[in-house]
């Protein structure tokens, strides 16, 4: 029973995010351990380098996420006088969420979609495509805005930055170490001291497969945050039907946002990548039918107090 209510959904998705992030952390340790097994102590110095590079590259874009994403998507900031009705609906959700008023932007694109970004609620930007603003009625728009404000309130820009940093560090580590392997560095000095062949083969497999595992974990985290945002959106509006019918509009629409940059795919409310070509394990969003079914289950609970 509690599994279907938005409160139950919220805590379940939060818990799964923590587990997945812990899995990410564990993966880093496994990679470092394998590197030490295979190459010996001399590789220790590589770890801070890989983590450092990943940190610098991800956290710069996290800190300036509001301006960078606006530039990448070609979104234009709106004033209240440009679209008073949209601002009314946003202000309603802002009151329901208790969050500060975000900046509002619009992307010229006929495909209906929306996203939220910004390093914290004070620097949040939520953006909508013109296609979405044309296609949605007030209740649907309210649902979409609540979903985006949930990303802001749940600090999903931060969560995905953490996931991207660890995945990036793992990819860098594995890349550097496999290169070292071809050049035959490191291992030579330790051949006598560490000769267990099974451990060596295992650590080699780990080093090769780790980046793949990291990307899978990153996608899984993104999917959990989308499901969480749907649940939090219902906690704001107490109206699962609005977001559900908005998602149905998105599901029925076959047009796709023009920029297919995979770098920002995870931030949209509906994945802009062609779902059929991407395997379910790598998807940044849960299947839209699954999200609609979860919201329908909440509707059937009746009005929640």
């Amino acid at each position, binding site marked *: 029973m509690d599994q279907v209510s938005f409160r139950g959904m919220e805590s379940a998705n939060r818990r799964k995010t923590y587990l997945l992030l812990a899995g990410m952390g564990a993966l880093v340790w496994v990679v470092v351990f394998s590197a030490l097994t295979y190459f010996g102590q001399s590789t220790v110095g590589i770890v801070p380098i890989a983590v450092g590079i990943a940190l610098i590259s991800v956290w710069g874009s996290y800190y300036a996420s509001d301006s960078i994403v606006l530039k990448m998507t070609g979104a234009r900031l709106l004033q209240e006088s440009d679209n008073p009705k949209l601002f009314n609906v946003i202000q309603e959700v802002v*009151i329901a969420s*208790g969050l500060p008023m975000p900046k509002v932007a619009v992307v010229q694109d006929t495909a209906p979609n929306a996203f939220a970004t910004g390093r914290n609620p004070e620097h949040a930007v939520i953006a909508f495509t013109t296609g979405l603003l044309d296609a949605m009625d007030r209740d649907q728009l309210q649902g979409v805005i609540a979903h985006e404000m949930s990303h802001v309130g749940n600090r999903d820009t931060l969560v995905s930055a953490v996931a991207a940093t660890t995945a990036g560090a793992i990819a860098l580590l594995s890349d550097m170490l496999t290169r070292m392997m071809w050049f035959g560095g490191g291992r030579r000095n330790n051949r006598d001291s560490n000769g267990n062949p099974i451990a060596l083969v295992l650590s080699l497999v780990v080093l090769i497969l780790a980046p793949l595992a990291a990307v899978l974990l990153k996608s899984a985290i993104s999917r959990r945050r989308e499901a969480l945002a749907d649940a939090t959106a219902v906690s704001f509006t107490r109206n699962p039907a609005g977001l559900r019918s908005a998602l149905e509009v998105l599901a029925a629409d076959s047009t796709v946002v023009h920029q297919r940059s995979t770098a920002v795919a995870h931030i949209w409310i509906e994945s802009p990548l062609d779902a059929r070509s991407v395997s379910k394990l790598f998807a940044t969003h849960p299947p839209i039918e699954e999200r609609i079914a979860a919201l329908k289950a909440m509707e059937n609970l009746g009005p929640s107090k």
Partner: protein
Amino acid sequence: MSKLLIALAVIAVLILILVTFYNRLIRLNVAVDEAFAQIEVQLKRRSDLIPNLVETVKGYAAHESATFEKVISARAKATTATTVADVAKADGAITQALRGLLAVAEAYPDLKASSNFLLLQEELSTTENKVSFARQFYNDNVRSLNTAVKTIPTSFFAPIAKVSAREFYEVEDPQSRQAPNVKF
């Protein structure tokens, strides 16, 4: 010497626990105050819309004076309310009176088509939504505060922080009292 250190450490930990729970309770209490202020801001906004709305409807439906009276008297009563229960009662009365006014407007196609009324209608429906979200946000905050005040361990610190359970904002509204739809 070591006994003294242990005693100091225990005292430090105890103070830390006290400060943590004390601050948590105060924060929750302040959040309830802020949420209530938000309700009052939105009620004020709605109250400010009423004269304009009544004037507009009057222009097309002058003889519906009983409905106007109801809205205007409900608005006047709301200005004197201060406690949560009184504000909620006055709020409910205005909500109902406005609903009556809009029902009257339904019967006048000229009025419904006028641009002024359309503008007011959008303003009114967004304000009505804002009022009800502000109520919901207030009640959510009261819920968190009351849970903290009544559950262990925060309940031990409530008297020290002089924080007690707060009143929910409950609006008398016949429409929301209807039994929920049951679907099978």
